[in-house]
């Protein structure tokens, strides 16, 4: 199976600059700066159908096209590497193996949008990826692939790395910009959208690591070839999946978009751990509603997953076996989200702890039948918040109510957790 992002991976160590170049790395950058206009690059990305890999799946080229064309003054590109979604470790895996495709992708994106200063906002604790990136940036500069007058094209761009102070909300793009500006990492009101008024009030594009790292392949090999990598007609390209939980292989893997959930679990994941039976999974990181075995034939692509009632999200697949208490699993996730709420808007700040309290009660055997209705009410009202944190947090709760209401009722009637 063709690999795009993991093409250069070396066992047990990161690829070197020389190896990356020898294997065709930075060819896309040479090509773009010598033969293509910024518009050509942008068009290629639009045509490729590349969608954001950070979780929301917004078409990347379209996002770039929102940046006003002729506005004087600086504009910025930010690479979002604040990978804090529980169950997700793809950006880390990618950068530990190969930081160069991100650097190359960022220069290409910068060229397409007209950016002279880009930032990588990286999760606290991602020391190795940060070190790899620093190294890669230095090497790229040394080789004239970054910095002033790149490859003699007249295009200049700098990349700065910012290590996050560490909060889940920093991964929200507007909160991330606030964090970069040195103010409290609260999300900002949209509109204005970042492409119009972002970092320091300037037009800004925020893209995920994986998204940007795909750009060199698109520029080098063309939009059609990239699109063809997916197994579904509407899909486009490869996707990094990070399985975890009760399956055999829990390593980050690059798979074509559109493989079904069943194919992924039984194939690359190597099936369930010995003696374990599949019960459910989180399909795309902690903020997505659960899938069960009934969803095994859902193609893992943005639209198909959405149609099936969940979200592809980050590709973080967390697998639960039959012995897993889904109330307990949901409580675990809710604890995370309640803790990580920025505390700004009422529904998220007050609602999440309250949902946590109800789930705690149910799990401890103190739940009441009315609690189910209150949970349902919160799934509805917590949708109306400042940013996507609370609606995301309600993903698993929604899944719990939809797929495992019986399990909740069992907790309530037995006045204990049936799995203990």
């Amino acid at each position, binding site marked *: 199976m063709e690999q795009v992002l993991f093409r250069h991976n070396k066992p047990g160590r990161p690829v070197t600059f020389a190896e990356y170049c020898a294997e065709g790395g930075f060819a896309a950058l040479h090509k773009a700066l010598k033969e293509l206009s910024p518009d050509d690059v942008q068009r290629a990305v639009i045509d490729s159908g590349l969608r954001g890999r950070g979780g929301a799946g917004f078409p990347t080229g379209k996002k770039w096209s929102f940046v006003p064309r002729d506005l004087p003054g600086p504009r910025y590109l930010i690479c979002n590497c604040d990978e804090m979604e529980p169950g997700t470790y793809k950006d880390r895996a990618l950068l530990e193996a190969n930081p160069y495709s991100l650097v190359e992708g960022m220069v290409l994106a910068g060229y397409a949008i007209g950016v002279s200063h880009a930032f990588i906002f990286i999760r606290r604790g991602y020391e190795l990826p940060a070190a790899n990136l620093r190294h890669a940036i230095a090497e790229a500069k040394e080789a004239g692939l970054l910095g002033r007058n790149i490859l003699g094209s007249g295009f200049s761009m700098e990349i700065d790395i910012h290590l996050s102070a560490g909060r889940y909300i920093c991964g929200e793009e507007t909160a991330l910009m606030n964090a970069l500006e040195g103010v409290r990492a609260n999300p900002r*009101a949209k*509109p204005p959208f970042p492409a119009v008024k972002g970092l320091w009030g300037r037009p800004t594009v925020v893209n995920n690591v994986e998204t940007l790292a795909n750009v060199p392949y698109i520029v080098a090999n063309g939009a059609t070839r990239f699109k063809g990598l997916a197994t579904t007609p509407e899909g486009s390209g490869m996707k990094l999946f990070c399985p975890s939980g009760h399956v055999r292989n829990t390593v980050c893997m690059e798979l074509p978009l559109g493989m079904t959930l069943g194919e992924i679990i039984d194939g690359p994941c190597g099936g369930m751990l010995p003696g374990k039976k599949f019960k459910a999974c989180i399909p795309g990181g902690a903020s997505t509603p659960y899938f069960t075995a009934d969803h095994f034939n859902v193609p893992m692509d943005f639209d198909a997953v959405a149609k099936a009632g969940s979200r592809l999200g980050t590709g973080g697949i967390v697998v639960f076996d039959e012995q897993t208490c889904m109330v307990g699993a949901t409580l675990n996730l809710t604890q995370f989200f309640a803790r990580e709420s920025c*505390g700004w*808007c*009422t*529904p998220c*700040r007050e609602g999440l702890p*309250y949902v946590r309290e109800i789930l705690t009660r149910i799990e401890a055997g103190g739940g009441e039948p009315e609690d189910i209705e209150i949970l349902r009410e919160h799934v509805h009202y917590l949708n109306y918040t400042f940013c996507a944190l609370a609606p995301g947090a309600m993903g698993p709760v929604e899944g719990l109510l939809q797929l495992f209401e019986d399990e909740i009722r069992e907790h309530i009637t037995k006045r204990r957790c049936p799995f203990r």
Partner: protein
Amino acid sequence: MVSLTIDGKNVTVPAGTTILDAAAQLGITIPTLCWLQKVSPTGACRVCAVEVEGVDRNMTACNTPVKEGIKVTTQSEALTAARKKIMELMLVNHPLDCPVCDAGGECGLQDACYELDAVRQDYSAVLERRPIRYDWSLLESDPNRCILCEKCVKVDHEIVGADAIAVVNRGEATIIDTVDGKPLNCEFCGNCIEACPTGTLISKPFKFRGRPWTFTVTKSVCGFCSTGCQIEYHSRNNRVERVTSSDTTYNNGNLCINGRFGYAYLNTPDRLTVPLVKEGGAQVSADWNRAMTGAVAKLKEIVAGAGPQAVAGIGSPRVTNEESYLFQKLLRDAIGTGNIDSEARLGYAQAQAVLQGIFGCTGASATIDRIDRAQAILVIGCDLNAESTGVEYRVIKAATKNDARLVLANMRNVKLKKYANAHLSYRPGAELALITGLMKAILDEGLENKEFIAAATSGFAALQGALASQQLASLAEAAGVSEASLREAARYLGKKKDVAVIFGADVIRGGGVETVKAVANLALLLGAPMAENGGIFPIEQKNNIQGMLDMGVAPDHLPGYRPAAAPGKDLWQIVAGIEQGTVKALYLLGCDPLATFPESDRIRKALARLDLLIVQDIATSELTGLAHVVFPGAAAAEKSGSFTTPDNRVQCLSRAVTPPGDAREDWDIIGELISRLTGAPHARSVAEVTVEMQEASGIYGGSCTLVDGRCSGLTKAMPAAPATYAFSAATVPAAPAVEPFTLIVGPIGFHNGSMSTRSANNLTVSPAGFVEVASADAARLGIVDGGSVRVTAANVSITGPAKVSSRIQAGTIFAPVHFRDLKASSLLPANATSVGVKVEKA
């Protein structure tokens, strides 16, 4: 323009308007809780939910801009339910200690629950208790009651600029606290208390003083600085217990520490409650008849013996227009002397005469709200935070909301520095050199307002010629700033349509007439008088200095600036007259020259020579101890009348409480004295005096009407602007003398005059005087923070605790003017705010 439909009604509004504002235009009210008009929208509470057709989730009306063609619904069952749920969620962790909460009865959360019908709580949870901050001064914070609307933080950051509080922690643990978790350290303006819809941020002095609805609320005007903020006294049992201001006032509800907390001076135990007379060297209490009879007899005796010119009076910028009017009437008409002056002689009176000659106006050329929208602002020789905080708020607004360029010229790093595009930290005494340098730089760069100069001024060529012979480099050197910084400042100020030039005590008192003329020239170069938004603004620390001058409390003019037939003695001539024995009787109205006047030691000696010293004041002091007769007067909350700000707004004050004990309103005291001296009937009400004052001045008019419970309607006629504004001849600035140390004496933000030093509230955050020493100097002189420092000028010394700081330049010392114990101004010569001194560890 954008057209949209709200609840089926069409409305067209400018792009960028929020749905909330667009709805308001249609008279549709959308409920809000965290929205506060005067700050940027927060969008946190979600109460203002509306439906937009085609959008699958509710939108917040307060921060969502309108879009062409959208259809908005503000009332529906679903919205009502959603809003109600928000309220219920807010109450999950709210303590509901309303019975003992200070905000009970005036609580935004209570009101919102009531309005949104959140009368039942379906949710219950174990309350998380968070520690209450009892360790802050003047304010107390109970985070348990907080609904995180962030109004306080926004007011603190966007309006006041103190940046003292912030949202800290995350999730449900989120609270409003100081950034570093230490006790609050800010300006203590308390505007956050006013903004807080709940009982989270409360005033400590007000806590448990009573339920909000049990107070009598009197709308009046603040009696501290000359911003003239509109306030409300809350009183009960004849005691003012708090001061508030509403967002609908001229000052947008924003006050400073003096306005909000300074009222405690009203309740000081030092208040004079009975007249005092001196008998055989000792002061004894007396009834009014005895005190008045004695004073009148002695006055008559002196006039009979030495003529009316042996009597003099010094008025006060603290008393009302009506009282100032009566005071000059007492001296001029009842006694027959023209010897009347005030502390305006320390600079403001002369400055105003200069401005009047050039701009035609008394005081400022425009009202201070024009500053809000100025494009460029120069603040020179003025610590606005201390001299007129409300004007500082406007400058901050202009700089932050409207992107005005701000040039700050100050010897010290005052608060405005953080908003300034350029800070010209000039050498003490170099105001004239600095202003001349700025003019030179403006002309060099061709940045003057040519259109205005050509159309409406005279004398420009002469000024240009005079400046041509000056070198920018040497002017910069004399001012102690770089040539580049002058050019940079010139570029910020030059070629702007709307320029505001604001200048304060260091120019008015320290710089003298020539410096004021130079400021006026600079304002003309920039076209400031023509500006629709901007103008020229003299700043004075005390509230009614303008009204006092308007009323003719000055030796050279009568009410309304009609020239006096025979000018009397001015302030310093009166002092000299006492020293020479030609002035034998002195009447001090609300004026304590021993507290904050320059050369106070000299004045103290002089006062001892008087045959008759009448002091009319509100509290006992060293001065009242010297007096032969003491009349207990009334403070601003205890009387009616009017004040006039330097920007010529005439505002009525209303009596909230009665003066303590036997004390009387000052107009009443003076009125009776006039009556006793002349036999004419005594005015029965202040309204009578107002009418008389209006007629006599010729420039005051209007009649009192209640508008929204606030007495207003008095006016002051402004003379028409001159056909042409005349540039003054340029004075060649001399480089200021080089002193090893220069003491700068001025106000600080925590106080106003010496009145606030009687306020227990102000004293909790600023208890005593200090001597601010630059850290480099402190190290050299072996002075440590808090250690004792002696400062000596000529043969006068003061000693105070050192405050080692980075806010002042090396070689300068700063001491606050307010404190009677420190007596900082006793070191100053007659008309100065700075003086060369010797500094040593004491």
